[in-house]
């Protein structure tokens, strides 16, 4: 009989992991023993079918999941997202065409779209000149003549409604390590903006100005500057109080610093150059539309890795929240989009809020945003109030991630890398859902942002993914 491990226990120092009644841990800890208390939740939410799938995956020898996940997350870490230019969607976004409207989140029909997304679609049709007024736009949208597809199916991401039409200018990002590209519109600022479903003349005028003046200025400056390495910039903004999702003030400032010396060299009227700089300066979230495609082009090479349980996409369309898992191909797992818990701008309340919407959760998927909450103490008021709350959020995310980022580090955690690469197995095992920072849209189209906060994804998407994973790999 092998008794050596027991002899070792008797001769060694007792060191305890406690699952359950905390008083037991406190007694031992009080006596000076090393003890860790596990804040345990029933795995798989107590659902026996999901738990059986999880256990079957753990026992299966059909595929080395850990190895596949290492391969997937290594690709994310190796990514070199770089801004290489600005172009019109129809010229650069794969598969873009006149009657195609890209939207945030998993696939959704016009009938199922929430108010802000419908508003943005109508605005997009007006912007493209496909409809003369709102009524005609709505009729056209419902007619079946317009195709709706997720941005994610076209190497793109869009904040909130995420509407991209063929005539919109987009940032072009290239992952220099893998050669793949990602696209995102230019951020329009706050208030009445298309991404929150506004489609009034003021919105359309701004969109046209962005196309006709802002985009050429930025493209020209970028041409002089040369490709802009987003990885080092994101690494810096995390040390400057940004999370790259809900707070983008440092990132926006860095972009201005990077481009300003070249903007002033452009052979354009000075008022035009000044207006472009002023526009960026007035919009703290200008950087979001760069952090998002950076995350997108970092994650895309990790898709479709056989046996990987890493989440490569999280996105919401205002009706549903969806995820995609590397080893499960293009399939979306969806559940009802949640309500955001957060703070509201003056004059608004939870009663005004739309459901969770937007592709911006791609930042969390790549290990920034809510996962880097500890880096952004200035926005802790959105998530509980104290810096400790933000540390706790990031720390919890390590529980569900495959690794720690080697480039993105958090000063307050002793420069520990951000939690990176969500393992859907760990989400189901621990019951810890990804922490997502986000803005809150008004539920009626055209009113805009009403607040910001933290949102929980629906847990069924992770359960469904685990069941599908078991079907595929056990």
């Amino acid at each position, binding site marked *: *009989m*092998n*008794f050596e*491990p*027991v*002899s070792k*226990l*008797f001769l*060694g*120092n*007792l*060191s*305890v*992991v*406690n*699952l*359950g*009644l*905390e*008083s*037991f841990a*406190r*007694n*031992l*800890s009080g*006596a000076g*023993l*090393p*003890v*860790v*208390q*596990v*804040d*345990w939740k029933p*795995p798989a939410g107590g659902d026996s079918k999901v*738990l059986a799938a999880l*256990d079957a995956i753990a026992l299966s020898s059909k595929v080395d999941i850990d190895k596949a996940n290492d391969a997937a997350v290594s690709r994310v870490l190796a990514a*070199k997202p770089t801004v290489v230019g600005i172009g019109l969607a129809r010229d650069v976004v794969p598969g873009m065409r006149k009657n195609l409207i890209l939207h945030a989140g998993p696939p959704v029909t016009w009938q199922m779209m929430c108010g802000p997304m419908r508003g943005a679609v109508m605005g997009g049709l007006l912007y493209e000149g496909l409809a003369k007024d709102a009524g005609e736009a709505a009729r056209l949208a419902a007619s079946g003549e317009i195709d709706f597809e997720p941005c994610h199916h076209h190497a793109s991401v869009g904040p909130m409604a995420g509407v991209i039409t063929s005539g919109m200018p987009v940032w072009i990002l290239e992952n220099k390590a893998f050669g793949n590209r990602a696209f995102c519109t230019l951020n329009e600022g706050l208030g009445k903006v298309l991404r929150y479903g506004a489609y009034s003349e003021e919105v359309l005028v701004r969109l046209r100005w962005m196309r006709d003046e802002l985009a050429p200025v930025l493209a020209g400056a970028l041409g002089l500057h040369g490709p802009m*390495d987003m990885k*080092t910039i994101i690494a*810096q903004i995390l*040390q400057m109080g940004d999370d790259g999702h809900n707070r983008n003030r440092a990132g926006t400032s860095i972009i201005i610093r990077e481009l300003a010396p070249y903007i002033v060299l452009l052979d354009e009227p000075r008022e035009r150059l000044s207006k472009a700089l002023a526009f960026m300066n007035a919009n703290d979230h200008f950087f979001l539309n760069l952090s998002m495609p950076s995350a997108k082009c970092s994650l895309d090479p990790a898709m479709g890795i056989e046996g990987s349980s890493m989440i490569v996409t999280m996105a919401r369309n205002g009706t549903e929240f969806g995820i995609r898992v590397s080893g499960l191909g293009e399939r979306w797992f969806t559940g009802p989009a949640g309500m955001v818990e957060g703070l509201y701008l003056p004059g608004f309340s939870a009663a005004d809020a739309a459901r969770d919407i937007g592709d911006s959760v791609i930042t969390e998927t790549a290990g920034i945003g809510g996962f880097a909450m*500890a880096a952004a103490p200035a926005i802790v008021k959105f998530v509980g109030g104290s810096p400790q709350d933000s*540390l706790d959020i*990031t*720390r919890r995310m*390590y*529980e569900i991630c495959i690794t720690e980022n*080697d*480039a993105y580090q958090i*000063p*307050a*955690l*002793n*420069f520990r*890398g951000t939690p990176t690469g969500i393992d859907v197995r*760990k989400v189901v*095992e*621990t019951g*810890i859902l990804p922490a997502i920072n986000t803005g809150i849209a008004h539920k009626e189209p055209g009113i805009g942002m009403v607040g910001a906060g933290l949102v929980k994804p629906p847990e069924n998407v992770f359960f469904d993914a685990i069941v599908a994973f078991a079907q595929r790999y056990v």
Partner: protein
Amino acid sequence: MKKITVRKDSYYDSVFLMLATHELKKTKGIREAVVAMATPMNLDLLVGLGFAEAQLSLARPNDLLIALDAETGEAADQAVSAALAIINRKKDPAAGVAAGLAHTGSFASALKVLPEANLALISLPGLHAPRAARKALERGLHVMLFSDNVPLDDEINLKRLAVSKGLLLMGPDCGTAIINGNPICFANVVRRGPVGIVAASGTGLQEVSCLIDRFGSGVSQAIGTGSRDLKDARVAGMTTLLALEAFKHDQGTKVLVVVSKPPVPEIAAQVIAALKTAGKPAVAFFLGLACERQDDGNLAFASSLEETALLACAFASGARDASAARVRIADRVVDMTAIRTRALQEAKLLLPGQKYVRGLYTGGTLCDEALFILHGTLGDVQSNIHVDPAFVPIDPRVSEGNVVSDLGDDYFTIGKPHPMIDPGVRIDRILKDGQDKETAVILLDLVLGYGSHPDPAGACLEAIGQAKAAAKKRGGHLIVVASVTGTPADPQGLSAQASRLEGAGVIVMPSNYRAALLALEIIRAVRAGATVKK
């Protein structure tokens, strides 16, 4: 020699880089060191320091430079590694964890925080506990499974897994252990010493370990096995036998003790064989089988928890075999004459009609021991844990005749804390039995130690006072007999608890065994007509 290392596109905060530069400059064999981003200013600086411009010209501002002037190539290589180690600071999973008890969200990350962990303490709901226990065993941890309601099949599978890895699975339904002197869950602060205990019952282990402490010896390790370990042929004593094997080879353990309800015969034979071949003196107490077995060489069979402790201490102090041990404890075993004299004194204070004992127990094995003693002689003692259904009361909340109740039994604890933690259920019963004019003796246990109520004596003093006053009002006298399972080092303090009870007129006996015997003799005296007519 000068050496330049470039790491492309690596952003580091300048403070880190300055720290790395500072550390490298102090390193032996390094004349000059610069760790910096390749900004134009830094490149100029390096050129000024004599580093080759050609090598630097390809570096861009987003690149990290490690420029060294070293005495040897080896020193330079080491310095590069050192620089990278400083700027890629070792990941610290505990970073940002608030002071105090460390919390994590999963078992896996608990092991990252505490990689040396060797025991998982599991008190999750019975439905989920086996899975958690299996994961802990798979990761090489011993497991104490406090949870109850774990299916038998799960217990068997877990114990097979544990034994195959040489790991202890204590439980399920194991509330007490002492590992390396540390009381775990419900256990007492017992002096360390040569006695290794394996016990299927929590309060049995507590009583024996506390009495060993009181009798001047101590405990090396006390392993709980869970109540089914020896009672079920399929569990087959897996934990008990592994623990005994470890004790056999443990330098710190000189005497073995096994405490259990009667094992199934084939397992009993294995356990006895293990004890006999251990090469160390041993004491077995199979509660309910008193005196059915004959001592055999240096294996002694005890007939009570107290005798178990006495025999273990006799062995610990050098008795070579069981008969020598019995000689050594001869003057310490119960003096029945003294107990009968005391019983008669007490019985004389009772009114006619005060004729029953009411045992109100919080400890299951203590209750069992009292029931065994009382029922064995009186023959009519009812209990919710009686093995003979004829003696199980229809309503365990009501006392009729002689009753010994285990208030920690599931019947009383569903949805409530155990009475060792929350004395409420016992307080109600003390008051209720005190109101019953047929009650002669209330028999109590008080279990101290970690996990238990911080002041179990104080918690029932008021109820005892009221019960006694009610009896007095009727012209009678209520006898309250108690024993305290504890040690002077327990948080509640053994003597403090005993003296609080004595102050309230409670007769405090030195062991549960003796408390039960005194209660028994009082009832026998009553039956013999000792009460006085007033």
